[in-house]
């Protein structure tokens, strides 16, 4: 016969690792951080959405304006993306490697400047924050911590440019957040998700497609896990109106989720390509997605 008191004692003697406190505090910080950023991003994209709406509106209302746009030379081939800023820190257990992209050659220089400025500012902010955390961690007795940022050009055609920027935080385990900008090079506008569609119906259509796709993938491969609303407290129910997305070179819409957003950490950043056929009637036009 075993004794419950003895078992309880064993349980209580499970050793608590030193990292625990930092892992807990860092998790809390990370859970807080993206929300703040999201509201910033939201504000910003509302502006862009308004600009896009105005633009689409102008084409429809004024034939002169539409005519004028036809005559604008195609700038696609001379727009380029390159790395402008590199911030690094390399001390025993603390590593930072941050690089920011810059866009060159857009006809709308105001747009180009504001994007480039945004990229650099965000990077600087991340670096400052990282330095602060390193200080804190040094005070609390050392640990390992790393951050790296960078970008990837997802799509670059005559018409479209999609840039994905990632932030990877490493502390214990790592987590990645992504941000995308998709730019119409010919019309010189930033495309937002809501601006692609006639009304909000896209949210439900895309969400239910993703939910069914999650189930299909999970049934097919047991290594794949997503958080589904019916199974777990914080499962996937719906995309955000301004969910991360980009558009592929063959005109498909891709929806992207950060680490932990809809799946356990080991799944990383997950993306879903949405079949254009289910979006057909909802789109403002088939210029970008078809």
């Amino acid at each position, binding site marked *: *016969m*075993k*004794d*419950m*008191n*003895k*078992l*309880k004692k*064993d*349980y*209580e003697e*499970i050793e*608590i*690792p030193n*990292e*625990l*406190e930092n*892992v*807990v*505090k*860092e*998790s*809390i910080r*990370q*859970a*807080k951080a993206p929300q703040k950023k999201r509201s910033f991003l939201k504000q910003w994209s509302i502006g862009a959405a308004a600009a896009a709406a105005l633009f689409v509106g102008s084409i429809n209302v004024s034939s002169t304006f539409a005519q004028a746009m036809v005559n604008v030379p195609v700038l696609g081939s001379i727009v380029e993306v390159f790395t402008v800023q590199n911030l690094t820190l390399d001390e025993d257990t603390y590593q930072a490697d941050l690089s920011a992209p810059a866009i060159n050659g857009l006809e709308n220089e105001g747009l180009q400047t504001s994007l480039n400025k945004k990229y650099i500012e965000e990077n600087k902010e991340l670096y400052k924050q990282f330095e602060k955390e390193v200080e804190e961690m040094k005070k609390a007795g050392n640990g390992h911590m790393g951050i790296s940022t960078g970008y990837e050009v997802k799509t670059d055609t005559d018409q479209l440019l999609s840039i994905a920027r990632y932030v990877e935080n490493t502390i*214990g*385990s790592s987590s990645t957040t992504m941000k995308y900008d998709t730019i119409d090079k010919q019309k010189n506008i930033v495309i937002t998700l809501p601006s692609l569609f006639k009304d909000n119906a896209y949210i439900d259509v895309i969400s239910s497609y993703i939910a069914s796709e999650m189930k299909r993938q999970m049934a097919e491969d*047991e*290594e794949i*896990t997503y*958080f589904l609303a019916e199974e*777990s*407290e*914080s499962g996937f129910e719906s995309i955000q109106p301004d969910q991360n997305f980009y558009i592929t070179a063959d005109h498909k819409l891709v929806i992207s989720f950060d680490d*932990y957003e809809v799946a*356990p*950490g*080991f799944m990383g950043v997950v993306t879903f390509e949405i079949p254009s056929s289910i979006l057909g009637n909802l789109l403002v036009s088939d210029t970008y997605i078809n």
Partner: protein
Amino acid sequence: MTKKEKFELVENFIVENREAHYRLAYSYVRNKENALDIVQESIFKALKSIDRLEEITYLKTWFYRILVNTSIDFIRKHQRMTVMDDDILSMHLPQAEDEIIDMDLHDAIDQLAPYDKTLIILRFFEDLKIDEIATVMNDNINTIKSRLYRILNKLRIKVGEDFKV
């Protein structure tokens, strides 16, 4: 209560009870890295879905539920990956010092299915009440009670005076 106050309450709860949460996660995976991962992921899920915690009085059971679900999810996903047992590993490693391996804990608790393991830990080690466990596991009180009796019986564990199912 404002949203900010609620967030702070949850945050404090998570920080204050981190050791209990870690031990629970550790009991499922028996390895430090995975246990830390589970704790981290649970905190993330909890704070991201804080709006679903309607009454702050349910904070404890609500968080345990997320923690238990995350742990069980984790084992389900990693079933194919077997973590080498400490005692097997120690045969292959240079002997550092004599370690008394506790066969009681290994045998009795570790062999249980995750669901049963959860009941034992929550009831006897974390001292939750039966109705709290029922909330965590989303089952009714009688099911939990009879299940607990059956496990104890099966394991032939002697429950001392201090413990009651």
